[in-house]
């Protein structure tokens, strides 16, 4: 038996956990993780909020994997542009797609195409200094409205409501902070379809809000709280109501939760959002003034993605096992949809890895792997190249920040001293 050559598309948590799991099965296999960006770690770097450095520390595991378990990183390679999926599959015995879900799911209501309506994915990428969003300058205005009650919605709420001084110890850049403070935000409304006890966010996210300085929390009088049926729901409800017990301070920003209200339509003036109309389960409706609207109701494939799952799945696909076609697999959000946090994607990768190993069986590797395609990849970034970027980002961190991210791809490539295709790194 010889181990297969493995290409993993995407270096976020799902891709890294997949490499880790496959390495445990196949000590000798060539395992290469490709990323379209010059830098690794996907949503750990660009999705986890910049003020959650403890969560980002999971990268320590992945660093070790690259440094000690001979997993290769090849950055700045976009499958579908730098190389076709077909060519990648021709070079590697096993290809695993772990590219996640990049697009913000729309609300699907009237008026969504007006100005000042933003997807939460774009906003969190922007505030995490993602190069893709360099041109985005959201007009939050004085009273933004957030739609959604998941952890991403609470991340956006916290980032909008937080006082500048409270970002001490985070990775928030001066540019991102400037985006947040430019609007003199007075109040933030957050609207969720579910009752308070059934809201999707984790209770720990609500407890964190209690630490914000200068923020006054309300739950709208017409909110649906629901009946807690277990200890977890009770804890969630108590945490939410606990927020509203805090004394109101002068000049505080106001945050208002609306539980049990679903978005109906977006009102606009002069082409920009002015209000959100919402309705409850009994058909009552109300209008909430909105200087901007941030939708946080999940993620989906970007339109025009070269890795569209439907299109590349064969008749033999078994999505529950991560199988898309002969030698082609997938894991993480790309496989199961946009639910679950980092640990869920670790479990997902471990399970799909078992299926990959079983599927491979005792076949003999017939493909040359990276060396077969290296010539045509253009400027790529190795793990060594990333460590140069990483060290630079840590060394230029200003006072009170853990890191200062490079914000554009050209600077990243320059610092990484990219490897021309075909050369040894």
């Amino acid at each position: 038996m010889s181990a297969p050559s493995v290409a993993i598309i995407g270096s976020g948590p799902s891709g890294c956990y997949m490499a880790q799991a496959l390495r445990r099965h196949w000590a000798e296999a060539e395992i290469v993780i490709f990323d379209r960006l010059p830098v690794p770690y996907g949503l750990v770097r660009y999705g986890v909020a910049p003020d959650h450095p403890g969560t980002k520390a999971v990268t320590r595991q992945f660093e070790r994997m690259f440094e000690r378990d001979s997993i290769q990183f090849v950055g700045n390679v976009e499958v579908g542009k730098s190389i076709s999926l077909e060519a990648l599959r021709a070079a590697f015995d096993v290809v695993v797609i772990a590219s996640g879900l990049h697009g913000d799911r729309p609300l699907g209501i009237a008026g969504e195409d007006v100005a000042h309506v933003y997807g939460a994915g774009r906003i969190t990428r922007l505030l995490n200094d993602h190069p893709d969003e360099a041109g985005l300058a959201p007009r939050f205005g004085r009273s933004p409205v957030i739609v959604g009650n998941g952890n991403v919605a609470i991340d956006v709420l916290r980032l909008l409501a937080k006082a500048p001084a409270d970002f001490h110890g985070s990775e928030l850049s001066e540019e991102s902070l400037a985006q947040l403070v430019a609007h003199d935000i007075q109040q933030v409304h957050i609207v969720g379809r579910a009752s308070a006890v059934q809201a999707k966010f984790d209770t720990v996210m609500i407890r964190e809000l209690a630490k914000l300085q200068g923020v006054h929390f309300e739950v709208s009088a017409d909110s649906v709280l629901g009946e807690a049926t277990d200890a977890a729901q009770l804890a969630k409800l108590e945490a939410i109501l606990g927020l509203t017990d805090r004394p109101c301070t002068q000049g505080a920003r106001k945050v208002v939760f609306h539980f049990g209200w679903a978005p109906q339509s977006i009102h606009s003036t002069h082409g920009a959002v002015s209000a959100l109309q919402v309705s409850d389960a009994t058909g009552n409706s109300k209008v909430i003034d909105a200087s901007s609207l941030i939708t946080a109701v999940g993620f989906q494939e970007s339109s025009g993605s070269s890795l569209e799952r439907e299109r590349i799945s064969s008749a033999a696909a078994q999505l529950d096992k991560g199988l898309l076609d002969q030698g082609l697999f997938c894991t993480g959000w790309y496989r199961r949809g946009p639910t679950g946090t980092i640990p869920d994607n670790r479990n997902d990768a471990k399970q799909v890895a078992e299926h990959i190993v079983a599927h491979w069986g005792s076949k003999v590797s017939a493909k040359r792997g990276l060396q077969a395609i290296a010539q045509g990849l253009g400027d790529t970034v190795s793990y060594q190249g990333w460590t140069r970027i990483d060290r630079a980002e840590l060394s230029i961190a200003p006072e009170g920040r853990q890191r200062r991210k490079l914000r554009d791809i050209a600077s990243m490539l320059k610092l990484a001293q990219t490897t021309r295709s075909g050369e040894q790194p």
Partner: protein
Amino acid sequence: MNIKVIYGTETGNAEMVADDIVEALSDDFDIESADMSKVSITDVSAENFYFVVCSTYGDGELPNSAKPLFDSLERHKPDLTGVRFAVFGLGDSFYATYNKGSEIIANAFTALGASQVGERGLHDATSGDLPGDVALPWAKQVLSAL
């Protein structure tokens, strides 16, 4: 002396610490690691010394992989008299429930008669320290005091 390093994890960080401890001590001891989800209470024996490495998850809860063993300890209440163990916790001081998970599992062991050796080691994710850099000196100190 046989050493078992058992870990409860969600993201794999506690597993990494367990691997570090095994690697650092394997020249001098008969030592191996196991996910707590694969450890049954009948495996827990006074003939071994245990390093229990455990993270905290959610709202101050045990990580998923520690829950089956914990539930089994609670339900069957085995007598762990004579069992010696030390606990290393991973957490994030950013949250009020910092390192609660390792405390829960340590209390479960001691309540059944096991004796905890040394102070609980703690790693704080917000500190930026490498978990292994904190865990290894701690583990060596625990063993030197045995």
